């Protein structure tokens, strides 16, 4: 099976979707001729023409707002916001319009759009190229929120997102675009060509939305992770020697509660990890759900390891980013209770 980077997998997902369904339209800033600042749409305009893949003015509300109108017409727009940090001007369109169109019109109009955006830190991106705003979307009824962690899932989830009848926020951890990253910035990065999850089948396949996957089976503690933190969790488990069961959530909304509860009832312990800031982050929802559903099986308090409640700094990148050492300490503490 061919190995691809996450960038290539994402591009392939759009290519496959555009070839299968002429209603699929791709646009955003620098997405057309140039192929995107991360190369995720490279070649699509040449292959499908300017009316299927095109450059947009620098206006996030314009991009998402026009995509909603296109979806109401009957197209399936897959649009890009250059960085998740720049989605806020489109927030009104996403929250007030895309998420509610089916509900408020009783299905008279629907909004099958995908909003792709590179997310996450670990790249010296500073305040406006590193944020993880997923909790701002998981709080919104009517949206689906997806965060892939590897090329295989990225392609399958993106095709599923494009085919989904409802709006999907598709957050791509840019730190994982070229290879897995476990937080060990001092070591050379390995490319996806050396990782088995870099194997991406040709043609059409989907990874269903709303289904988590167990990345590392274990018996001692459940780690709930997504995006880059999946690899941080693997490193932390290996370095501490703790037999952690690592769940890659993949879809945050709707959430695969069954897999989470099944695991925590087995291990009796749970550590949640995300890059996003702690307070009111998605980890709070996960923690509450675990507590509500697994209370009598818990042998230790549910722990959360997250970005600090500060804007994402530049120079202090590795003091901010929740790396394997910090997560490892939480695993050890959770096992000691």
């Amino acid at each position, binding site marked *: 099976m061919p190995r691809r980077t996450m960038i290539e997998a994402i591009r392939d997902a759009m290519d496959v979707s555009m070839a299968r369904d002429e209603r699929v*339209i791709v646009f955003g800033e620098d997405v057309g001729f140039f192929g995107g600042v991360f190369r995720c749409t490279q070649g699509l305009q040449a292959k499908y023409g300017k*009316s*299927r893949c095109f450059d*947009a*003015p620098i*206006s996030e*509300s*314009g991009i998402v*707002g*026009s*995509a*909603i*109108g*296109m979806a*109401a*017409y*009957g*197209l399936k*727009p897959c649009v890009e916001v250059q960085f998740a940090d720049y989605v806020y*001007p489109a927030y*009104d*369109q996403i929250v*007030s*319009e895309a998420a*509610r*169109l*089916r*509900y*408020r*019109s*009783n*299905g*008279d*109009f*629907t909004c099958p759009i995908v909003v792709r955006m590179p997310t996450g830190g670990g790249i010296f991106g500073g305040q406006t190229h590193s944020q993880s705003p997923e909790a701002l979307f998981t709080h919104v*009824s*009517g949206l*689906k929120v997806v965060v892939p962690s590897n090329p295989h899932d990225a392609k399958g989830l993106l095709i599923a997102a494009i085919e989904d*009848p*409802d709006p999907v926020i598709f957050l791509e951890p840019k730190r994982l675009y070229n290879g897995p990253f476990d937080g060990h910035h001092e070591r050379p990065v390995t490319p996806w060509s050396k990782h088995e999850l870099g194997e991406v089948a040709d043609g059409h396949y989907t990874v269903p939305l*709303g289904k988590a996957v167990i990345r590392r089976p274990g018996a001692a503690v459940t780690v709930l992770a997504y995006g880059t933190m999946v690899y941080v969790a693997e490193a932390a488990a290996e370095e501490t020697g703790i037999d952690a069961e690592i769940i890659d959530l993949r879809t945050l909304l*709707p*959430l695969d*509660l*069954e897999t989470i509860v099944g695991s925590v009832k087995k291990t009796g312990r749970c550590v949640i990890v995300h890059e996003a800031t702690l307070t009111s982050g998605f980890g709070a929802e996960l923690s509450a759900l675990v507590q509500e559903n697994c209370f009598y099986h818990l042998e230790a308090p549910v722990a959360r390891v997250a970005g600090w409640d500060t804007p994402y700094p530049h120079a202090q990148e590795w003091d901010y980013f929740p790396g394997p050492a910090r997560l490892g300490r939480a695993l050890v503490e959770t096992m000691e209770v």
Partner: protein
Amino acid sequence: MADAGLLRFHVPEPEVRPGGTPDFSDVTIPKAGSVPRPEIDVDPRTIRDMAFSIIRVLNRAGEAVGPWAGLLSDDELLEGLRHMMTLRSFDARMQMAQRQGKTSFYMQHLGEEAVSCAFRKALAPGDMNFPTYRQAGLLIADGYPMVTMMNQIYSNEADPLKGRQLPIMYSSKEHGFFSISGNLATQYIQAVGWAMASAISNDSKIAAAWIGDGSTAESDFHSALVFASTYKAPVVLNVVNNQWAISTFQGIARGGSGTFAARGLGFGIPSLRVDGNDYLAVHAVAKWAAERARKNLGPTLVEYVTYRVGAHSSSDDPSAYRPKAESDAWPLGDPIVRLKNHLIQRGVWSDERHTQAEAEILETVIAAQREAERHGTLHAGGKPSARDMFEGVYAEMPPHLRRQRQQAGV
């Protein structure tokens, strides 16, 4: 200029406040028939003056004059009059129903009936409007059942939106009426996207975007104009300037721009201004703009100059911020009276027939109201089920919503 060294903050104010004498002497009203009618493929740069004038057809004597006249037959005009009268009657009944506690909220169109009623007749089947909450004339003029509108207003068991939406936030794909949102201006850019989609699909349908004077200050107005201009989208960009945004006079949104139409010029969009109380002018300009869009000539911005005669909504009291008699002084008059006088002048209508039509329409509206009330009102009779509250958030109900529905016991 004694204090030329110090900055002073500028906040625009309307000419007159409550207690004052209404004064529209600064509103320049060009003579009917005085604005030329360019070809639809005109170079936008050559018609910039039109963004500062007002296209008018009906003169003071009720005659249709000038190059924008003569598009509508007697029957079409009589139908238009009936639509406007129906909307006004509908408004009055629903306003009263709100006062009687049969619904929580209502918004009238008083004085603005020509804008949406005449515009609708310039569109073709399949075209899509992206209206605000003050274009119900689009539905009335397209034959959408009044009973269904009332069912929505009453949030009753027959409400097509299952009680999920505030009154008057209608939705009808079938009638080319996009789902209304409470968030202002959002639909303006969506209309442009819909029009882009029609062009992408090599279709022949066009979109119409709607916005009020106040909401042009929202950023989505700007993004809509950028996108419409960039992609030459087949869309008519309508701005209904009724002078007021709740309590805020239009100068607060307009700023130093001479007119709202003038906003379009900076985007290279042909921009016209029209007498919004002149059914014939509204229809003629709408037709011109729609034809431009359909011929792939791109977007047109149209400012309808009108006046919001009624309160902003059933929750508003305009006497707190503007003179009571201001609407009487409005120089463009009343759209229904003006079309009525024109039809009388044409010899196809009379005061007697008008009075009779008013009575007939009222009867029809009351009959519709009776039928709607058989399905319930907000606090009495049939209502949507609590189960409906959980449906339609997604195409398929996800597990967490199923659990919540079970918890709610419905």
